[in-house]
């Protein structure tokens, strides 16, 4: 059975697109045929992060309007042949999306793909609503900072009341927390909320903590999902996230600051 994953947050700039690109790549690299859809119509970014911006011909809105077939619009990733990107339209706005159209595209993708990752736009309006509406699993991306945590809380409320699963009284969406741009040093100094602080407010299954890292910016600029940078801490953290999502148990590596981390490593657990 295909699974639809929404990557959402409410707040902008917390790392939704970076996360969408990384986990879609991670799933594909593990042998699962994966599609990633950019729902941010009008503010198209995913193609840049995935490095396929020069190959966009048709987009999501064209497919919804039946101006192009799905196969014409899907772009195969240059690094992994099991990963496909459905870019957003840059010249339209969110009103171009319709619930019926999005549902139709997802149903068609489900026939062929194992995972469909929906990169949600910020906000709680139409684009974000449609990105989450058909989801089976939700990755809620949060920065360790109060306004981001509150926005995530709001999104969680919408997931449990305004999604298709909620409306049709089906089993609720699986919700996972992804804490991004985390800096253990700054948590220690009291400048940032800790994992426990965030968990206290959201009480959600923690899928992973992605450390604040230069490698994320480098990856974005070069158009390769950060998960392919296997040497970087952020890349490894995303690798763990994908493994945990697929059912593996892995210890959280990036919650302690580096000193603590090395002490754990060399001190024998």
């Amino acid at each position, binding site marked *: 059975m295909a699974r639809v994953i929404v990557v959402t947050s409410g707040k902008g700039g917390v790392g939704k697109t970076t996360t969408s690109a990384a986990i879609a790549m991670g799933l594909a690299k593990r042998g699962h045929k994966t599609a990633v859809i950019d729902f941010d119509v009008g503010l198209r970014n995913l193609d840049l992060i995935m490095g396929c911006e020069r190959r966009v011909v048709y987009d999501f809105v064209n497919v919804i309007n039946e101006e192009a077939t799905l196969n014409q619009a899907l772009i195969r990733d240059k690094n992994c042949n099991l990963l496909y990107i459905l870019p957003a339209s840059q010249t339209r706005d969110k009103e171009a999306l319709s619930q019926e159209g999005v549902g139709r595209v997802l149903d068609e993708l489900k026939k062929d793909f194992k995972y469909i990752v929906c990169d949600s736009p910020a906000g709680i309006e139409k684009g974000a609503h449609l990105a989450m509406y058909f989801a089976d699993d939700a990755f809620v991306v949060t920065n360790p900072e109060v306004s981001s945590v*509150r*926005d995530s*809380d*709001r999104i*969680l*409320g*919408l997931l*449990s*009341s305004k999604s298709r699963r909620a409306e049709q009284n089906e089993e609720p969406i699986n919700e996972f927390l992804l804490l991004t741009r985390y800096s253990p040093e700054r948590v220690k100094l009291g400048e940032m909320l800790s994992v426990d602080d965030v968990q*206290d*407010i959201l*009480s959600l299954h923690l899928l992973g903590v992605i450390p604040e890292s230069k490698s994320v910016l480098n990856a974005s600029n070069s158009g390769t999902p950060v998960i392919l940078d296997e040497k970087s801490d952020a890349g490894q953290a995303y690798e763990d996230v994908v493994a945990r999502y697929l059912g593996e148990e892995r210890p959280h590596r990036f919650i302690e600051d580096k000193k603590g981390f090395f002490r754990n490593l060399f001190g024998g657990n």
Partner: protein
Amino acid sequence: MSQDSKKTAKLANTLEFKTSTFSVPVLLVATDDLSLFEKQLVQKINQAPEFFKNSPLVLDLQEINIQNHKVDLNALVAVIRKAGLLIVGIRAGNDLQNKQALEIGIPVYPAQDRESVVEVKKPIRVQVVKAQVPTSTRPDIKESVPTTIITHPIRSGQRIYAAGDLIVMAQVSAGAEIIAEGNIHVYSSLRGRALAGVQGDIEARIFCFDLQAELISIAGNYKVSEDLSVSVRNKPVQIYLQDGSLIIKDIV
């Protein structure tokens, strides 16, 4: 469809009679000294001028009639109207008072109890709209209002309304709102707004395991987060109303 029936259908939609129950304050008068009465009335109103401003009011004449005071209803009505209250009915009046009231367009309600000393030979009823006027500030609680139980977290932006008691078995996030006509229980952290007794039940209480609320309110008496002292925060407390002010106490 003929022209006529169309017309009838249109006409039928222009009005509709409905029954509604309202909560209206009742003023019990127990004196024939109108100047003393006026003084005390103004005093009371000045304690909460916004609350009483243009407030509807039912005038209860039971005490006056028990004590056999002779009061000119028109004069009494004038004093009350002068104070800014709008009389929407009299209750437990005698025949003369009822007649006077109807003459100046004030509806007449029968006495509340059956054993009223006032002799009502032929109760005069206004039959157009049935209005029930409760005697006290505590409204009649319906016999079987089910308790609402919620087991999942209530997230920011969500709003829950319970017609009876509300029990929440998970956290209530900041920015969420839980509202109940009865009591509220939260067996986790209460970070949002909690409003109990919203239909005026001053006996309603709020119980929570961990008080971090943005706002708490019972029957319209509220406190915001800033007003909560450190001594009651982050612990199990109950909140109730005593003499018009909110009391927050540890759950023993």
